[in-house]
C-alpha cells in the first residue's frame, strides 16, 4: 500500500475531496499505524512468553482486541438501527451498515485467530463450545443483516427489515460474553473485562496497546466506511431522480434532452446525520 491512510492525493473539485478522507482520518490513520507498530513490538518482542501457554499467549494480544471490536461493531449496529427506526434519517442507516460490515470483518478475525490458537492448545481448530458457537451465531446474524439489506428491491424496505434484525445483535453480544459463565465451556473466562485482570506487567501492556491500536483502526475504518455508505446513498438517489426524469422525457417528446445527461440533477436535499 503506497498510501496507508488513503488520503494523501488531495484531489479536490471546488474544495470537496474526491475520496472519503479528511484531516480527521489522516490524523487518526497515522495514530493507528504508529500504535499498530507499537502493538507488534510489545506483542511479539518486548512481552515475555507465558509460563503455561509459552509463545502462544502472543496470539491472545490479537484475538482479544478483535473480539472486543466485534462486540463494538454489533453494538453500534443495534444502536444505529434503533435510531434509524426512530428518526428515519439516512445518516443512521449509513452508520448501521458501516458498523455491521466492520462487525463481520472483526467477527471473521475473531473466529480465525481463535481457531489458530485452539489448534495447538485444545488440539482442534473448532469445537461446539458455548462461546465459539454463540460467536459464530453472532457472525451469521451480522452477515444476515447485510444480506437482508440487499434482498429487498426497495432501499427503504431493506433498511427496515435489516434494522429489525440489527436490534437482535447487541442482545446476542451479551449472550456471547456471558456464555462462559452461564454454560460449561472450554473457553477461558473473562481476562481483562473485569475489575481485577488476571494478567499483569508487560503482558497486560501488550494487550492494552493492542486494544488501543484496534480502537483507532476501528474508528478510522468506520469513518471511511460511513462516508462510503453515504456516497452509495447519494448515487442511488441521483440515479433514481435521473431515471424518473428519463421516463418523463420519454412520455413528453417536447421536453428536450433526457435528464441522465445532466450529471447534477436537482432533487430534495437529504437530511444529514
Amino acid at each position: 500500500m503506497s498510501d496507508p491512510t488513503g488520503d494523501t492525493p488531495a484531489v479536490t473539485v471546488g474544495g470537496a475531496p474526491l475520496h472519503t478522507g479528511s484531516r480527521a482520518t489522516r490524523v487518526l490513520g497515522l495514530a493507528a499505524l504508529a500504535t499498530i507498530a507499537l502493538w507488534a513490538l510489545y506483542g511479539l518482542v518486548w512481552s515475555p512468553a507465558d509460563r503455561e501457554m509459552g509463545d502462544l499467549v502472543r496470539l491472545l494480544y490479537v484475538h482479544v482486541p478483535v473480539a472486543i471490536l466485534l462486540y463494538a461493531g454489533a453494538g453500534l449496529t443495534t444502536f444505529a438501527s434503533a435510531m434509524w427506526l426512530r428518526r428515519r434519517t439516512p445518516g443512521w442507516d449509513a452508520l448501521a451498515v458501516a458498523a455491521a460490515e466492520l462487525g463481520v470483518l472483526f467477527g471473521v478475525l475473531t473466529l480465525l485467530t481463535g481457531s489458530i490458537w485452539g489448534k495447538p492448545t485444545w488440539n482442534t481448530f473448532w469445537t461446539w463450545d458455548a462461546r465459539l458457537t454463540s460467536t459464530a451465531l453472532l457472525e451469521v446474524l451480522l452477515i444476515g443483516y447485510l444480506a437482508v439489506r440487499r434482498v429487498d428491491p426497495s432501499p427503504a424496505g431493506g433498511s427496515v427489515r435489516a434494522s429489525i434484525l440489527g436490534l437482535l445483535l447487541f442482545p446476542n453480544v451479551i449472550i456471547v460474553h456471558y456464555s462462559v459463565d452461564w454454560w460449561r465451556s472450554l473457553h477461558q473466562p473473562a481476562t481483562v473485562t473485569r475489575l481485577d485482570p488476571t494478567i499483569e506487567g508487560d503482558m497486560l501492556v501488550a494487550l492494552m496497546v493492542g486494544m488501543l491500536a484496534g480502537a483507532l483502526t476501528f474508528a478510522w475504518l468506520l469513518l471511511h466506511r460511513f462516508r462510503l455508505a453515504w456516497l452509495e446513498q447519494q448515487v442511488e438517489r441521483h440515479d433514481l431522480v435521473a431515471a424518473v426524469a428519463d421516463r418523463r422525457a420519454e412520455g413528453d417528446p417536447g421536453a428536450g434532452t433526457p435528464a441522465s445527461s445532466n450529471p447534477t440533477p436537482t432533487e430534495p436535499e437529504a437530511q444529514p446525520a
Partner: protein
Amino acid sequence: MSVATASLVAMSDGGYLAAGWGATIGLIGAYALITVRRGRRLSRRVPEGDRRWT
C-alpha cells in the same frame, strides 16, 4: 517491524503466530484498501455539495 518478524520466526509455534498476526493485519489492510478505493470511485459520481467532509 523486521525485529518483530525475526522474533516471530525464532519462537516456538511461530507458524501459528505468523498465521494469526498475518491474517489479522492482512485482512484489515485489504479491507481498508478496498474501502478507500471504492470511496474514490464513488466520489466522482456524487455532486460536490453531497460530499460534506474536508
